[in-house]
C-alpha cells in the first residue's frame, strides 16, 4: 500500500491546514522548535520571554528531546529525534497557543479529544503524530541543520528549546484535523467492538484495585 505524502510548511496558511485529513502522511519543511514541560513552565508559569520570534519564525512545536550533543566548539551533533508523549502537556497547551501562536503540534500519541475541541480548534491548530514511535533516524535525516539552542543552561539538554531547520522531514501522521477530529479515538472505537470476544475465558482479579473500572472504552491518558 502506497501512501501519498503531503509536504507542509511549518509556517502554514489556514488553507494548508484545512486541507489535511485524519490519517494523511505529512513531511515538514521549515523551522521547528522543541518545547515540552521545561519550556512551558519557564515561558508560561515564570513568564520568561520566548527567545524566538513566534509564530513568524515557526508555528510548529515539537514535543521532543533529541539525542544530541553540543561540541566544545559550540556546534551541534544531532543524530536521532523522536517525540515524547503529548498528553502530559495538556495543562499548558492552551496558554502555549496564546503566547506562541503555534498551529502545528508534533508529538507522540496525540492528546485527548477534549483538548482538540477546546484548545486546538479555537486556535486553528492541528496535531501531527510521529510514526512508530521510533522513526528517529528517518526524522534525523530530515534535519538540515540545528539553528539554535535556547535555555540549555537553565533546562538541560533534554528540556532545552532546540531550533532546527527541517527539509522533507517525516513521516508524520495527521492525528487531529482542523475540526478537532481525533484519529486515535476513531481507531479505538473500531477496536472496542471486538474486545469482548478477546476477553472471553478470562476472569477479573479476585483482589480489586481501588477505583478500578472494567469499561474497555476507557483510556489511560487523562
Amino acid at each position, binding site marked *: 500500500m502506497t501512501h501519498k505524502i503531503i509536504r507542509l510548511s511549518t509556517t502554514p496558511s489556514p488553507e494548508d491546514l484545512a486541507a489535511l485529513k485524519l490519517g494523511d502522511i505529512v513531511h515538514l519543511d521549515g523551522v521547528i522548535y522543541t518545547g515540552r514541560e521545561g519550556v512551558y513552565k519557564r515561558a508560561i508559569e515564570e513568564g520568561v520571554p520566548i527567545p524566538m520570534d513566534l509564530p513568524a519564525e515557526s508555528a510548529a512545536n515539537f514535543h521532543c528531546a533529541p*539525542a544530541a550533543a553540543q561540541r566544545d566548539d559550540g556546534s551541534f551533533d544531532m543524530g536521532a529525534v523522536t517525540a515524547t508523549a503529548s498528553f502530559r502537556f495538556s495543562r499548558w497547551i492552551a496558554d502555549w497557543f496564546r503566547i506562541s501562536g503555534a498551529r502545528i503540534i508534533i508529538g507522540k500519541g496525540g492528546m485527548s479529544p477534549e483538548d482538540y475541541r477546546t484548545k486546538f480548534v479555537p486556535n486553528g491548530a492541528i496535531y501531527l503524530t510521529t510514526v512508530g514511535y521510533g522513526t528517529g533516524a528517518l526524522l534525523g535525516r530530515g534535519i538540515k541543520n540545528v539553528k539554535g539552542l535556547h535555555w540549555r543552561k537553565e533546562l538541560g539538554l533534554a528540556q532545552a528549546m532546540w531550533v532546527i531547520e527541517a527539509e522533507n522531514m517525516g513521516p508524520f501522521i495527521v492525528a487531529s484535523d482542523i475540526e478537532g477530529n481525533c484519529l486515535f479515538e476513531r481507531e479505538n472505537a473500531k477496536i472496542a467492538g471486538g474486545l469482548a470476544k478477546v476477553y472471553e475465558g478470562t476472569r477479573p482479579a479476585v483482589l480489586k484495585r481501588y477505583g478500578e473500572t472494567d469499561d474497555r472504552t476507557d483510556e489511560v491518558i487523562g
Partner: protein
Amino acid sequence: MISIDLIESTAEVLMDKAAIEIPQDYLDGLEATASVEDGDLSSFVLQAMLENYKAAKEDRRAMCGDTGCPRWYVKMGNEAQIEGGPVALEEALRRATATATNGVPLRPNRVHPLWRTDHDNNVGINAPEIEYGFEPSAPGQGDWIDLTTVHKGGLFGTDYRMLFPSDGIEGIKRFYLDSLVAFGKRGLACQPAIIGIGLGGSKDTCMVLGKRAACLRTVGDRNPDPRIAELEMEFKELGNSIGMGAMGFVGKSMVVDCHIEVGYCHTGGMQMSVHAFCLSSRRACARVHADGRVEHRTDPQWFTPFQRRETVEWPATATAAQ
C-alpha cells in the same frame, strides 16, 4: 585477569551498537509480523520502522531519538578475575555510559526524580543499573565476563499486579490483556514489542524477571518448561488477536514474541508483571576473555539452566554437561 581498559572500550562499543543496530532476531520477527499485517495505517507504520532501522545503520545514528535508559547486565564466569576488582568494573561501565552518551550521541535521559538535575551523561544516583550474575564453568574455562547493555525505552507498557492462586490462568490472561490494551491504545507501548511476563517471586523479583524476560531473551526462544513454552505461544497469539496493531491503529501486530519467567513465590500468592520492550529493542552483548579476545553477539544468553536452577546444590556434573 581481564583487562579493565578492554572492558571499558568494549562497553563503549556496546553502547554504540545497542543504540544503532536493531538485533537480527527482532528484525526477523518484525518482518514476519509486517508480512501478515493488513491494517492500512498499521502496515504503513511497520514499513516506516523497517526503513528506519536501515537508515540508522547506514548513517550510524541512533534508531530512536529517545535512546532509553542504558543499563548493564554483567555475568561472570566462575573464575573471572577483573583487573582492579568489582569497584573498577563499575567505574568502567559508568564511564563508558557517560562517554557514549556524548559520543553516539544518546539522549541524556537520566535526571533526579525530584530536582530534575541532569548530568547530561545518563549517569546519576543508582543510574545506570548494573546487575550481576554468575555462571559455572569447567576448570580453566571460567575467566571471562559477559557485558550486556540494554537501553530500555518506555514510560508505558509495564505493570504489576498481585494475583492469587484462585485467579488461575484466566486471571493471568485478563491482566495480560488489560496491560496490552491499556498501553496499546495510541501506541503508548511502542508496539509491536517483545512482551516479558514475570510470574511469582516477590514483587521486586517479579518485576526483575519480567523485565529480563523481555530484554534478555531473543525472538523465537522458548522457556525450557514445555507447559510454559506453550503458554508463551498462546499469549503471543492472544495479543495479536486483540484487533490492534502499531500505534494502536486497527491491525493484528501487538506482540513480536512473548517470554515468561517464573520464580518460586509465597504459597498464597501469584505475582505477575508485564513488560513491553519497545520497537527499538536495544540490546548488545560481548564476552571479554582474560586472553584479550572479545566476542560480540546480540543474544545475552542470560537465562541458562544455572540461572533457572531450583535445587540447593549445583552439581559439577551439570556444568560439564552444558
